């Protein structure tokens, strides 16, 4: 059968139009978390959805452009965290390929994997720019406690990050899964179909 390849670098118009929508969803998640004073970021739901619909490459690009735009309009340091967003896009894209995020449990497991990847990529950035902190109150409190007890900066920083990433990425993947499940078949087919026209008869 004619199906889109995992590492497709062909950007159809539909995949390009998906990117701004994904970034808009990231922003909505962030707003939602802020207004409801949730102790989470929820700022990569759109990136995850782009990956689930259209694969790791489109997901990664959505993540990167998300941070570029956030950097240009809110907080310039967000630029460097484009690397984390790219990693999230790629990870979700790979896991989602062949419909491997199709139950609530699987989406939770995907959330755990994504959290670990995100923390691994973010930690060096946190160390370079913030001496290892993340800017999240709970994470940074843990960090301060750990380095006060002579735990190496890298480990303290990784733990600072992952304390926040675990609940955040699990919630992100659950929400993305619930939204994806509600999308019309027409739309999912559009993104999954291959690149050639068959001849009938």
């Amino acid at each position, binding site marked *: *059968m*004619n*199906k889109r390849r995992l590492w497709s670098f062909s950007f159809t*118009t*539909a995949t390009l139009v998906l990117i*701004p929508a994904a970034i808009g969803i990231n922003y909505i998640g962030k707003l939602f978390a802020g207004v409801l004073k949730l102790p989470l970021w929820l700022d990569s739901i759109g990136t995850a959805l782009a990956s689930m619909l259209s694969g790791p490459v489109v997901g990664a690009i959505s993540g990167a452009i998300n941070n570029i735009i956030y950097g240009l309009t809110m907080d310039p340091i967000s630029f460097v965290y484009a690397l984390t967003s790219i990693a999230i896009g790629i990870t979700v894209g790979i896991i989602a390929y062949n419909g491997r995020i199709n139950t609530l449990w699987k989406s939770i497991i995907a959330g755990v994997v994504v959290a670990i990847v995100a923390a691994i990529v973010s930690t060096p950035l946190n160390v370079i720019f913030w001496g290892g902190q993340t800017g999240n109150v709970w994470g940074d409190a843990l960090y301060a406690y750990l380095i006060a007890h002579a735990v190496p900066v890298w480990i303290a920083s990784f733990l600072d990050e992952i304390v926040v990433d675990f609940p955040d990425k699990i919630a992100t993947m659950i929400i993305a899964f619930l939204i994806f499940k509600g999308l019309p078949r027409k739309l999912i*087919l*559009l993104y*999954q*179909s*291959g*690149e*050639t*026209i*068959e*001849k*009938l*008869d």
Partner: protein
Amino acid sequence: MKKIIVENLKYRYPLSENLALKGISFEVEGGEFIGIIGRNLAGKSTLCQALVGLVPHFYKGAYSGNVEISGMNVLENNISELSKKIGIVFQNPFTQITAAKLTVYEEIAFGLENMGIEIKETIRRIEYVLHLLDLEKYKDRNPFELSGGQMQRLAIASIIAMKPEIIVLDEPTSQLDPQGSEEVFKAIQSLSREGITIMMVEQKIEKIAQYADRVMLMSDGEVVDFDVPQKIFLRDDLLNYGVQAPVFTRVCRSLNIKNKNTGLYPVTLDEAYELMVRHEQNRS
């Protein structure tokens, strides 16, 4: 000259089981206004998209048959090339805004910039369509700040600026309020007067009766009938296809008021009115 030639067109969407178009053939002359009717999922939108090349180039899937638009083969030309000959307007005005331009003026320019039209000509065309679609007042507005009817006229203007010979309208007023719909129908009439060939899918059957030179009745991926509105609306099995004849036709039919020359029932208000007056005069 024939503007549209469709020969035995068959199409199946990717990863789907059934054919959405099952061997369609018809021809359309330049300047004609064609109405397309039929129940939900009859394949009307798929046919529209096949005329502009979205089927198969955008969707891929499985395809056979032959579609020629002003002498251009759809399968052999890409959508951008075809857009010089044929344009399309969809239901939802909101999704047709590029969302990348800040003013109505720039929005209209989008397609022309992509086609590489030189700036002087671009400006000339923008001024022309702003006037034709009565959008001059809004040229510096953000497209998102327009009303539904204005937005849909902007979508039409953006297509007309590309100078197509044919325009396809897929339920262009189904998401508009009554006032917006009227604005858009007026705009469509002015396109027809400019000599543009029109194919319009529309649920409001009175509008089809009023504008269409010929009506195409579709069902289940096939063209059931393609004829002048008076003949289409005479069919007894119309309701089986989810379509009801215009109210004037039904009234005159129940009163047995016909056009003496053609022997057919009227389809528009004006026609019905005239025949009724004559009918009354004859009786007295």
